[in-house]
């Protein structure tokens, strides 16, 4: 999807100032989410430093970089998960489909319904598989009746490639599944709410290689319908699943570009050092 990345001309945002540090094309022509000059502080500590970046519609963008580079923190800004941390403060602007997500008029609840999230460690609720998936549709009032709810659960599990594995034991606890199945359950749970964007925070770091492969396969299938932002430690994973890659270093967005380009012809010195394994 490299052809979606275009120049600065056709853009409808006024502030197109790219911080000096960033190399590469941060803008896309049909952005779903846009971050402008985003900085995040934990108490006094600067965790994300003046990042400007677009997330395109129906693309997978990977955030990579060494530990503590702020990639997860930025990810959590996209659905305001950082609100749950008292000392965390954000500056700058993030929009979804042109709406400011920090606008007081936007309910954080509906934002999170639009921007789903999958966490590092599989975290199914201690409820049945069915109830895990049905939780989101129930709280948001998405299903008008139980038939519709059943259908949402079935479709979500199908979409996550889990249906055939669990269809006979929907009433068993979600925690009884294997780690990889649990993570796909969490993805299905996010899908069930009908999001536009899915944020994934190192979704495979707790999984074995086979389970990881299955989740990666799922991500590739989901890219058609959703924008996916994935934070990963594994360079190979970024190379395998993402369309674009953004490299972060010490809270700054150093370089962003087509995944192929980043991995074959990195421009910035830091990016090159990192992907060639000289540090990190």
């Amino acid at each position, binding site marked *: 999807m490299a052809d979606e990345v275009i120049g600065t001309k056709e853009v409808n945002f006024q502030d197109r100032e790219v911080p000096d540090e960033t190399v590469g094309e941060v803008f896309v022509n049909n952005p779903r989410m846009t971050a402008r000059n985003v900085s995040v502080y934990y108490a006094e500590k600067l965790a994300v430093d003046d990042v400007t970046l677009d997330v395109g519609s129906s693309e997978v963008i990977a955030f990579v970089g060494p530990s503590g580079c702020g990639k997860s923190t930025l990810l959590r800004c996209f659905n305001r998960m950082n609100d749950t941390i008292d000392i965390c403060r954000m500056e700058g602007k993030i929009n979804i489909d042109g709406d400011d997500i920090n606008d007081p008029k936007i*309910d954080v*609840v*509906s934002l999170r*319904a*639009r921007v789903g999230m999958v966490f590092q460690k599989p975290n199914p609720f201690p409820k049945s598989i069915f109830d895990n998936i049905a939780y989101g549709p129930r*709280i*948001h*009032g*998405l299903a008008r009746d139980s038939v*519709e709810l059943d*259908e*949402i659960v079935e*479709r*979500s599990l*199908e*979409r996550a490639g889990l249906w055939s594995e669990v269809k006979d034991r929907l009433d068993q606890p979600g925690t009884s599944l294997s780690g990889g199945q649990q993570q796909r359950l969490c993805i299905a749970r996010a*899908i*069930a*709410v*009908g*999001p*536009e964007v899915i944020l994934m925070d190192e979704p495979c770091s707790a999984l074995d290689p086979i389970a990881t492969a299955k989740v990666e396969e799922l991500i590739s299938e989901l890219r*058609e*319908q959703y924008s996916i932002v994935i934070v990963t430690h594994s360079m190979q994973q970024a190379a395998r699943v993402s369309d674009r890659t953004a490299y972060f270093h010490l809270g700054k967005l150093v370089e962003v570009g087509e995944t192929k380009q980043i991995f074959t012809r990195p421009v910035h010195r830091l990016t090159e050092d990192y992907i060639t394994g000289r540090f990190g």
Partner: protein
Amino acid sequence: MTRSTDSGLLSPQEAAVRVAASLKKRGRSERRFRYLGIAAITLSILFLVLLFAGIFTKGIPGMFQHYVTLDVVLDKGRMDPQGDMSEASLYSGDARGLVNESLLIALGSPEGRKAKRAARSILSSGSASRLTEFTLKHPELIGENVAVKFAVDDDIDSFMRGFISRETPESDRRINDETIEFVDRLDQASLISYEFSDYLFTGSASRDAEIAGIKGALIGSIWTLGVCLLIAFPLGVATAVYLEEIAPKNRMTEIIEININNLAAVPSVVFGIMGLAIFILVFGLPRSIPLVGGIVLALMTLPTIIISSRAAIRAVPPSIRDAALGIGASKMQTILHHVIPPAMPGMLTGTIIGMAQALGETAPLLMIGMVAFIVDVPGGVTEPATALPVQIFMWADFAERMFIQKTSAAIIVLLAFLITMNAGAIILRKKLERRWQ
């Protein structure tokens, strides 16, 4: 129903519409839930405020009382019939007569037995011994004319505070018209003063509210707590050290742990029953003594001390133990030199909290007879005594207005002790806490 074409799931657009539709209702229920939480906390704090307000509004006046200042001639012959100024001689003297005569003079020497009786009823029954004690303290003043303050009777005190109304028909009130007139006369002569009660801290148990005090009970509590501390602290620390550092993981250790848990769950009154059955009925120790009370309270607070001491020991990082063992210290040396000292603040904090718990405990002391009416101040752990909370319990039974206030005043003293102890524990923890990084 709009579906995105391939998956059969709701499209984001349709989902967003439905989410938006649900928001209003969910916002309401969110606020409702939040208000419930705020209401619960407000309710708890409101009750706390009511409790303290109730006790302080009654207890602060309970720390004061009315006194009459009278000029008394300390006639040597009548005060000290044996002439040797000894305690026995002074107590056999006619202090009562002297006090009553001074009072009558102050009232303008009323005539008639009824009037004299009315006059006498103004002063507390403890007035004579107050004069005797005054003389014992100031033997040089014998033969002189001195001004001495005497407590008024509790009915008169209640009248002065306005709890007994003049408007009540004479037959319905506890003091008659003549007495009221005398009180007014003393008041007009500015002989009645309202000041801090010196009986509260120096008086002992008495059926007369105006001269009742908590001295005996307070000392009894101190003796009891002393015994409790001497037993509970070493036992608790030793048990904690054994269980955390030495005990093998076997059946015996498990039984000890289960028993400690059980002891923490047993109602306090049951400890009292055990004290009664074992120490008094089987071992034949006397009733009502701080020794037995202290033992019972020690066994009761043991779980508290053990649990907090174990937590303190667990907080000492294993690396310290490894370091000591690594340079050839024995297990016991490691424990004595490197585990117990850093854990000590935590252990002491737990002990203070346990002691505060013991200080406020009443029920077990009732069982072992520390509820008796004891006038003497206990001089040791084997003398009959009562304790502060038990004194409060006994006073609470008396219906006199002044006793209600005295009880509240005693409660304030008890609470002051408890708050001091707990604050001490917090300060100790803050001050001595060693941070392991």
